[in-house]
């Protein structure tokens, strides 16, 4: 490939963004090796991307720096040798000598290094080889199945009255086939210290709402997905604000959000 074709192709941009296939990486790196002047172009693209990032700068909260420094200080400095061995090579004679001479402390340093090395190699592969990322999930297989099932119905709960927080997202996922109900919450405004949110379901023919889970504060950090009791004849879901521990009267105190089940 000639230089002009290469540049016009956009491969270099994709490479810098870490989005190319291993084959594309090889192509780009071969071109860079063959035409070192292309590094100037690479730097110019990187600078443009930096400027986009800078343009969207947002100062982190004031406590962040201290927190990060604390976390970094907790990490033991690893006694890594200055050159990392390749994954495929056998231990060098120098490494063996260290192990032989320094006994237990060397063994510990080796284990710390190995763990960091594996993680580092994984990151290296991720960045340099531009592999497609698999979606990582902290969800249970059942939850994933519900979310991916085309038969799962989704009902958004809406604020009754003025929304205190625009970005709150509360949705109920109902899968009648498997009899599963999930409640997903994102960015609920923090309840007061003496209050809790509670979920309710209104079923067909039964005007009195049935209390479901009290939503404890740590499910309201940012995003949560929790299983709820399944009701085949659910007609609506509601979230209310209650005294801490949930409603003591058996009915909602103040209903904040409602989502009607359609169809």
């Amino acid at each position: 490939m000639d230089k002009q074709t290469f540049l016009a192709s956009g491969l270099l941009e994709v490479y810098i963004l870490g989005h190319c296939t291993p084959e594309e990486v090889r192509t780009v790196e071969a071109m860079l090796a063959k035409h070192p002047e292309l590094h100037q172009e690479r730097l110019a693209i990187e600078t443009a991307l930096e400027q986009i990032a800078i343009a969207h700068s947002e100062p982190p909260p004031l406590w962040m720096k201290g927190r990060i420094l604390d976390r970094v200080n907790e990490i033991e400095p690893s006694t890594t040798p200055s050159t990392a061995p390749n994954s495929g090579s056998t231990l060098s004679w120098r490494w063996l000598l260290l192990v032989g001479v320094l006994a237990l402390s060397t063994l510990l340093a080796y284990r710390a290094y190995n763990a960091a090395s594996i993680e580092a190699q994984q990151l290296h592969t991720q960045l340099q080889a531009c592999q497609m990322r698999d979606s990582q999930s902290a969800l249970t297989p059942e939850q994933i199945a519900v979310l991916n099932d085309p038969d799962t119905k989704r009902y958004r709960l809406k604020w009754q009255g003025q929304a205190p927080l625009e970005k709150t997202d509360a949705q109920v996922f109902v899968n009648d086939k498997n009899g599963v109900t999930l409640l997903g919450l994102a960015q609920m405004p923090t309840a007061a210290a003496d209050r809790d949110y509670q979920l309710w379901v209104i079923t067909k023919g039964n005007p009195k709402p049935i209390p479901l889970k009290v939503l404890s504060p740590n499910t309201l950090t940012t995003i949560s997905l929790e299983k709820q009791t399944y009701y085949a004849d659910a007609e609506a879901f509601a979230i209310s604000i209650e005294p801490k521990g949930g409603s003591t009267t058996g009915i909602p105190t103040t209903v904040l959000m409602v989502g009607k089940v359609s169809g």
Partner: protein
Amino acid sequence: MEQRIVALLQGQDRAAIDLLYDHYSPALFGVILRIVQSRELAEQVLQDVFVRIWRNGHLYDAHKSKLYTWMLNIARNAAIDATRTAYFKHFRKTDDLTLLTHVPASESINPDVMDVRKMVHGLEDKYRILIEKIYFEGYTQQEIEQELNIPLGTIKTRLRAAMSALRARFDTPNAAMQALLVYVGNWIIR
């Protein structure tokens, strides 16, 4: 400055994190925030990103990329991973463009920063959407091909055109000075 930080980082001198934070954290946080669209999640991700930068400093290769690019990619990958749970994909309306174009409120927005933002937003739709999808949403080329019905080759050439259009605006003497002011401004604020 970048060289000094790189030397500290690769020497596992903790002063590197201090400097990295002061110079780069707002840009990293801004990018993470735009991707995850949640302040609390972004705060978590930012911490993880700095820890990852610290742990993997010895892997950074100055011949392959600038330090900033290396860190931005770590931040973007971490943020995108945080959003790629099956749950998040269904939970967030990813076709909701208002989420994508939401600009986090700042007390006083540096006018130079606004100019650069305007440049991105002022791009033709087909360029702007591509940059937003790849940069801020972590779409792979294949995903863009499927969603927008654009052939893979066109995606790349269009990205090239988009970046070239932006760079042409950046490269005017005015824009270069502005970009420099933004950088210095951020440094001073810290």
